[in-house]
């Protein structure tokens, strides 16, 4: 029973972490249809910016804010000069974002080195609670809370404001959205940057969990994010959230019952889901 509860909480926390890493991509890939290979890099920049400011100022909150701001700016830069030229052209998107990924990952190595940089959790989130035989790590609970808040917040933002609507329309017919008097380019830039900032936040919150950040962390998390978005169903933000929790719990279960399958569990799941339900588990139809 203790083990069950421990696994459940850890699975949920993993889900929350996965969601934080994937939510940005859910917007950029799911909503805007951009196959964004810079995701992992944005994640890295989030993590490194956070560590940088956090160690400099000793303030966890400032570190988080800095990571969001810096990566938002990077997002604006990426979108305005590069991604905006390749909407609707998937292979070009893959390549141009791949190029940016190569460059900006190498820049991370240039600025911060290739070896992992260490980071501790802030004292107020560093502890654990012991209830019976169950150990609950405060930082994981914090992740669950943040993940839930972000999921709800963005869901509301996309559904109660015009942003979601304009983007959905703009992806299909950018010319007509313009002809109706809406500056779709501005929307695209801001939404892309917001997605980027979420990726950055993911990186910032990831670092204290695992205790360090390194330049190779991006690529793996990027694949994970793609899996989540696709399993959850492209274009469905809530689907991504559900997909993340599902993956988190599944990860915990596989690690406990069939650890030898853990390495391939995620991709296999993705292939299986897509083969039988191309639209994803929770999504609307996949477009195009």
């Amino acid at each position, binding site marked *: 029973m203790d083990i069950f509860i421990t696994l459940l909480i*850890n699975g949920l926390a993993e889900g929350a972490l996965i969601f934080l890493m994937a939510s940005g991509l859910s917007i950029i890939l799911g909503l805007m249809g951009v196959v964004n290979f810079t995701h992992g890099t944005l994640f890295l920049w989030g993590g490194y910016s956070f560590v940088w400011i956090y160690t400099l100022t000793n303030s966890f909150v400032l570190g988080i804010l800095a990571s969001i701001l810096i990566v938002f700016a990077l997002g604006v830069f990426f979108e305005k000069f590069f991604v905006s030229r390749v909407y609707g052209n998937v292979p070009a998107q893959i390549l141009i974002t791949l190029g940016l990924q190569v460059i900006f990952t190498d820049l991370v*190595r240039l600025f911060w080195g290739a070896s992992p940089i260490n980071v501790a959790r802030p004292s107020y989130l560093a502890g654990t609670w012991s209830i019976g035989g169950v150990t609950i790590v405060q930082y994981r609970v914090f992740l669950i809370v943040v993940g839930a808040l972000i999921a709800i917040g963005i869901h509301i933002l996309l559904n109660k404001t015009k942003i979601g609507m304009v983007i959905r329309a703009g992806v299909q017919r950018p010319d007509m959205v313009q002809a109706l008097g809406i500056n779709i380019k501005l929307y695209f830039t801001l939404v892309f940057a917001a997605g980027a900032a979420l990726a950055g936040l993911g990186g910032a919150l990831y670092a204290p969990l695992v*205790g360090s950040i*390194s330049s190779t962390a991006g690529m793996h998390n990027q694949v994970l994010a793609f899996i989540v978005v696709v399993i959850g169903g492209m274009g469905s933000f809530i689907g991504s959230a559900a997909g993340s929790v599902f993956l988190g719990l599944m990860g*915990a279960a596989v*690690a406990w019952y069939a650890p030898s399958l853990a390495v391939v569990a995620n991709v296999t799941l993705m292939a299986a889901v897509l083969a039988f339900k191309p639209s994803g588990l929770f999504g609307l139809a996949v477009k195009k």
Partner: protein
Amino acid sequence: GDETGPIKIGGLTSLSGALQDYGDQMQKGFMLGLEYATDGTMEVAGRKIEVIWEDTTTVPEVARERAIKLLDEEKVDLIVGPASSSDAFAILELAEEFQKILMIEPAAADFLTGPSWNRYIFRTGRNSAQDAAAMADVITTNKPGAKVATLAPDSAFGRAMVDPFVQALADKGGDLIQQEFPPAETTDFTSYILRIREAAPDYVYVIWAGANNPWSQLMELNLEQYGIQITTGAPEIAALRSMSPMVGMTGFTVYYNSVPENPVNDWLVENHKEKYNAPPDIFTSGGMAAAIAVVTALEKTGGNTDTEALIEALRGMEFESPTGKRYFREDDHQAIQPLFEIELTEGSDHPIPKLLRVIPAEDIAPPISVPADAKR
């Protein structure tokens, strides 16, 4: 080749990509080592030493292409490197084809001086079997007949580290009761650690490299309270930084700047600090060892770079290194060397390994796994 011109050494290692820090350290160590071994003249027997560095980018095909360039175009007399075992694996055959020596440092996979070995391959660095033997030695010395579990990534690296440990532990009378292999990128070690906790070993040998390390989770799940000791090989400084929860742990190390006590290391620490404003690290020490080995051999041949002469000189040759004396075993050209039992103590930037005992080289000499019919 040319007996009067400069001696050309090809330095082939990861200078970009994920392993760039290893390559970088090795490069610095090698250059310092040349300086040390030639007393700053960068000359052996009147011939200048010239090093040409190439980047494998940690991609085996590129490693091959660069190696061919070094051998065919630059006509180097021997190659030192690389950092990645896979890169090394891809160029073993080129050494044979071009009949030039490949001095491996610091790639550690066993088979390089084992099943896949050829007579042109030497390795100054330790291999994973030596690590395994050292670990087994530390554990069984502290608790004879100990029950041990391992926790290593489910990757070539993880497996390559655990496999020789199984044998080494059995040889020293330990009992391996549990092996856990989480995916290399996992961020949640709970299931694996819980299973180890239930198996109740005396020691858990943790093998991990990468940002997503298990240290804090090992502490959170209170293994020590269950009477389980955590142990590992202390890594390079950057990775040590993430091990602050592990202060007090006993384990082994290949090198830490304050651990070995000998004049070579003193020189290295002093000069490295002067030049780079930081202490040397594991792969710096390795690079230096490789340089000393090369120069020692060249001195023996009197500056003759003929491969056969060099092989002759290197076989069984003893040479200095920052971790003490090493020698190349005749059968597989693996450098036999001491490792160190250490305890992690509090440090300002990272936990500092403190020497408990030098593990003698002979005690941890790995089994010879070169095929019996290999051409020597």
